[in-house]
């Protein structure tokens, strides 16, 4: 022990003899840190001595190491009790009260180098007798990948900071690191050398008095020891990161255009049954029986289970819920200050907007040009996919909330102005009623007709008699619907001609499969360039199409070649998409960001559904209707427009986050389908749905805790316990190893940096 006080050091210059004490935690490399310091001084020709306070320390437990520096050979071999320099590799080791041994024996002016995330400012008053240096070595070392996530090795980084704090030239650091073969860490050391902040001691400040050694306490004899004394080390202080229960975004929910909480309602179905699931589902989705039949189900396409043993059939589960709901819900009570809305168009977007606004307590007038509500659901989707009574039940549920719906009311531009004048806001959700035309010779021949019109006619009960070979042009659901309906109307043979490949068809893949099973032929990479026949079409000329450069959507633009061939046919159905009614938006108005503008003045007239987005699925329309309703309402009430942003990519649950081994391989539950031979000639519903709701049990519940107890059972410390409807982690003992998070099968947890203490 040095008898000479040397700690009044105005600069970083080191007095000799110099005694240094390093405090760290097992695994941080405190002993090597002390050794690096010794190497730096040895590089300058000093006598040095360095050693660790060896014990059976484990990763995280407090450890100490010492370095002595002198001009003369060092003879004493005891530990350092009056350090001139104190290095604290984890500032959480600093005393919370008095009596701790980290600062013990350090006099006024001693250098106190702290590895802390809190910066110098956090130590202004508490340690003002010392010359305090601060560096966030953990952050630097973590950036340089030294150690593991749970245990960052900060020794070399701190050594770099130390060198700067005591004015050692960088070249000395480099030589010392090289002499110990640690040059790999020089980058981190250099960063710390540059980053360390130092402040002088406050003159006259009093350092804590050295601890008076307590007299040894009587030690129980080995032969008398009979009591249980749990070890109970404060292992919570060893932690540099901590586990946290946090939901993440399931890919199904992220993919749902309607904005459904998909994982939520599937899990609710599993744990709470139909009623519980419906409560979640109806918050975003008034037409579950419809969507449960006709949605292309991007949720299932995104499902993390898809590549494992098959995606969860979410659509079928949605249908299961929708079909088991009470026929009509209750009337929604009015808000304290009900607003008045007009919704133009009774399709899915309009119904969704009306449902959302009426459910929120506002008055809604819903105007539909056609004879019944549902839009394309009623006119364009064949009964074998969507029976009318199913649609009627979903629509009835919307109306039951108290929506004032009127059919047979066509609205044009002046009508919109009138509605706007009479309502707080108007939502235009009139869809795309104008079929796209095909600009090809012979397109006006008899037997060439618009597919949607054909479907509508069939839907209305007409049974146009078809015979021979029917060619359907297009690749969307309307094309497939036309093809299958044509079969059911007597066509002997049906061919779909599509200008891209099968994989690129916008139609629901299972619908395509079912059509093929029913006997529909598919000709891809073909585009009609002419029709011929005497009065009625008898031939269609199909040109071959090659994929060209990708367009804005990323799909390769079809390039029509000169190679063409004729296909004999008896009828052609065109399903090439639709466009809006150009007379709907009042003359002189424009549309910007989904809102009608009167010159530069925003009006309270909004566009929703296909009219706004052109995305073309029921789910998109429903989502759009609800979101636009929320925006319109916010604008009316002068509230900020609710942002419905997509969750950040890093919050999504990807397959890499799912621990597949947790889950038994279990193939999707099949839906009951009528046999292709039986169904192809009638309009009875093809898909009979699921036999039970057990498909919900296949859901991984990505990002949502299911209380599966994996965290509790995998914790090596046994510090996770059930608490309320979740879990509690005993922070006094949790070492922050992260096993619970790594083992969580569904990313319902995460590790967060535990930097507060430092």
């Amino acid at each position, binding site marked *: 022990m040095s008898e000479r006080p040397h700690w009044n050091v105005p600069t970083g210059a080191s007095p000799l003899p110099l005694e240094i004490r390093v405090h760290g935690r097992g695994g941080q490399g405190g002993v090597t840190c002390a050794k690096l310091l010794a190497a730096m001084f040895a590089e300058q020709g000093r006598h040095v001595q360095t050693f660790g306070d060896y*014990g*059976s320390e484990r990763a995280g437990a407090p450890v100490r190491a010492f370095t002595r520096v002198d001009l003369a050979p060092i003879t004493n071999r005891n530990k350092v009790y009056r350090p001139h320099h104190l290095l604290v590799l984890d500032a959480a080791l600093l005393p919370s009260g008095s009596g701790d041994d980290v600062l013990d024996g350090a006099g006024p002016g001693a250098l106190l180098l702290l590895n802390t995330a809190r910066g110098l400012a956090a130590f202004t008053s508490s340690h003002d007798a010392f010359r305090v240096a601060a560096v966030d070595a953990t952050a630097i070392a973590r950036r340089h990948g030294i150690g593991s996530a749970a245990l960052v090795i900060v020794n070399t980084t701190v050594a770099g900071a130390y060198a700067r704090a005591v004015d050692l030239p960088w070249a000395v650091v480099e030589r010392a690191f090289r002499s110990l073969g640690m040059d790999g860490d020089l980058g981190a050391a250099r960063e710390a050398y540059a980053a360390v902040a130092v402040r002088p001691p406050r003159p006259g400040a009093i350092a804590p008095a050295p601890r008076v050694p307590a007299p*040894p306490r*009587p*030690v129980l*004899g*080995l*032969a*008398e*020891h*009979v*009591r*249980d*004394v*749990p070890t109970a080390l404060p292992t919570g202080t060893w932690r540099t990161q901590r586990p946290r229960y946090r939901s993440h975004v399931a890919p199904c929910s992220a993919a749902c255009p309607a904005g459904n909480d998909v994982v939520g309602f599937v899990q609710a179905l599993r744990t709470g049954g139909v009623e519980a699931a419906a409560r979640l589902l109806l918050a975003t989705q008034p037409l579950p029986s419809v969507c449960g039949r006709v949605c292309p189900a991007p949720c299932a396409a995104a499902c993390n289970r898809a590549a494992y043993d098959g995606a969860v059939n979410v659509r079928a589960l949605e249908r299961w819920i929708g079909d088991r709901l009470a026929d009509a819900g209750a009337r929604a009570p009015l808000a304290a200050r009900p607003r008045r809305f007009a919704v133009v168009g009774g399709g899915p977007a309009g119904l969704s907007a009306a449902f959302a606004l009426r459910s929120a307590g506002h008055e809604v007038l819903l105007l539909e040009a056609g004879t019944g509500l549902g839009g394309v659901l009623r006119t364009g989707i064949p009964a074998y996919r969507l029976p009318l009574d199913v649609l009627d039940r979903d629509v009835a549920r919307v109306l039951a909330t108290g929506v004032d719906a009127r059919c047979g009311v066509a609205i044009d531009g002046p009508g919109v102005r009138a509605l706007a004048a009479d309502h707080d806001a108007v939502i235009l959700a009139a869809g795309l009623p104008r079929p796209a035309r095909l600009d090809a010779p012979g397109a006006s021949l008899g037997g060439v007709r618009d597919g949607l019109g054909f479907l509508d006619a069939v839907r209305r009960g007409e049974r146009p008699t078809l015979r021979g070979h029917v060619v359907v042009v297009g690749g969307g659901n309307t094309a497939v619907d036309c093809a299958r309906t044509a079969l059911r109307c007597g066509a002997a043979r049906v061919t779909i001609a599509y200008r891209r490949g099968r994989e690129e068809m916008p139609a629901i893949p299972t619908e395509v499969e079912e059509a093929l099973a029913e006997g529909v032929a598919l000709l891809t990479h073909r585009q009609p360039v002419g029709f011929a026949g005497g009065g009625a079409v008898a031939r269609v000329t199909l040109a071959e199409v090659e994929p060209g450069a990708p367009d804005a959507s990323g799909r390769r633009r079809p390039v029509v070649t000169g190679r063409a061939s004729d296909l004999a046919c008896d009828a052609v159905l065109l399903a090439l998409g639709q466009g809006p009614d150009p007379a709907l938006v009042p003359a002189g108005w424009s549309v910007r960001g989904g809102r009608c503008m009167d010159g530069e003045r925003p009006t309270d007239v909004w566009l929703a559904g296909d009219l706004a987005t052109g995305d073309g699925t029921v789910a998109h329309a429903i989502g759009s209707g609800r979101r636009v309703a929320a925006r319109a309402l916010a604008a009316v009430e002068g509230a900020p427009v609710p942002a419905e942003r997509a969750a950040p990519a890093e919050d999504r649950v990807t397959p890499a986050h799912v621990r597949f081994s947790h889950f038994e391989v279990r193939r999707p539950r099949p839906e009951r389908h009528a046999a292709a031979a039986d169904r192809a000639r009638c309009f009875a519903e093809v898909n009979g749905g699921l036999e039970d709701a057990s498909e919900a049990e296949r859901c991984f519940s990505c990002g949502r805790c299911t209380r599966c107890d994996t965290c509790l059972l995998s914790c090596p410390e046994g510090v996770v316990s059930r608490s309320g409807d979740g879990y509690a982690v005993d922070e006094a003992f949790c070492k922050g190893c992260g096993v619970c998070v790594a083992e969580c099968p569904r990313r319902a947890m995460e590790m967060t940096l535990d930097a507060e203490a430092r």
Partner: protein
Amino acid sequence: MAGRLISANHAAALAATLAGRANRTARGFCSGVYPITPSTECMELLCNQEFEKGEVVRVESEHSAMAVCIGAAASGARTFTTSSSNGLALMAENVVSAALLRLPVVMVAANRALGPPWNLWADHGDTLLLRDSGWVQFYCADNQEVLDTVLCAYRLAEDHRVLLPVLVCQEGFVLSHTTTRTEVPSQEEVDRFLPPLELPARLRDTPRALGGVDVPGVAEAHRAQHHEAMARVFEVYREVQDAFERELGRRPADPVVPYRAEDADLLVVSMGTIAVTAQRAVDEARARGERLGAVRVRTFRPSPAEQLAAIFRGKRRIAVIDRDLSLGFGGVLWGEVRGLAEPGAVVQGYVIGVGGGDVRPEHVAAVAADLAARTAAGRPVLMETGA
């Protein structure tokens, strides 16, 4: 005179058997044994005994023999093992552990030189290797003493003021294989003398780690406690002698046994059978008019320093005979006792009979003659007994 004609090995085995059976009303008896010359016959006889509540485990090494004793003792059983020479050396780490854990194991060693080069014969070097292991050590001089000392060892070891293991040493062949008339007490007598073992800290159901880490401060305290327990051995041993005498009608020998020492000009100090051979030499010297005396050190650990210092008072010439050699130093006993004599006294060390050399009274007489001629102590004298 009553008694049975048995070897010291058998005397030890019978004593262990009686002691083991005496614990049948408590946690029973458990012994781990492994053969090694010259202790083998002891374990063989033990393996032929019937125990109402006892086990003799034939293990694969001396190391495990002591380990079995440690486990059994921790569980509250009375334990026993026996070994020699390299067996003790292999066993050593567990020997130390048994003591540090304060387990009252009793072991009989048939002393034999360590090797290779192999040597089967008497030498105290094996048990003196365990000098600092924390065991009480007795060195015996005849078969009866072996039997009695083993019985006393249990009562001493198991006394709550002591709680230390005890090593009873008897020289290989010289005692182990030498048959003499030996009184073997009845089970009833032993039952009266030796109460059932109640180990205060025996392993029960309470979570507790026997042998967990002793950090420096705790280790210091535990060593001090161990040392204090050693210091209580003589006091407790006196009570054991009294009880033994009460129940079995004879008094076991004291820790230090002087022989015609009071008026002696020359003293010969030794352990084991050399010390009784020395008594024969003393008698012969006295017959010649030489005032020779002898001192037998029976309790080597704890060190009987006070008893020896009292005997040494006023003595000017003391010879210490060791049947062991601390190479580069001299006899171990000599090293321990030479500081106990008065200032100016000549305490000369002699090493005789290592590796089984046959020590006869004339060797002791030669020692006495050499000592009488000395005015100052010199380097230890290594005497060869010849083939």
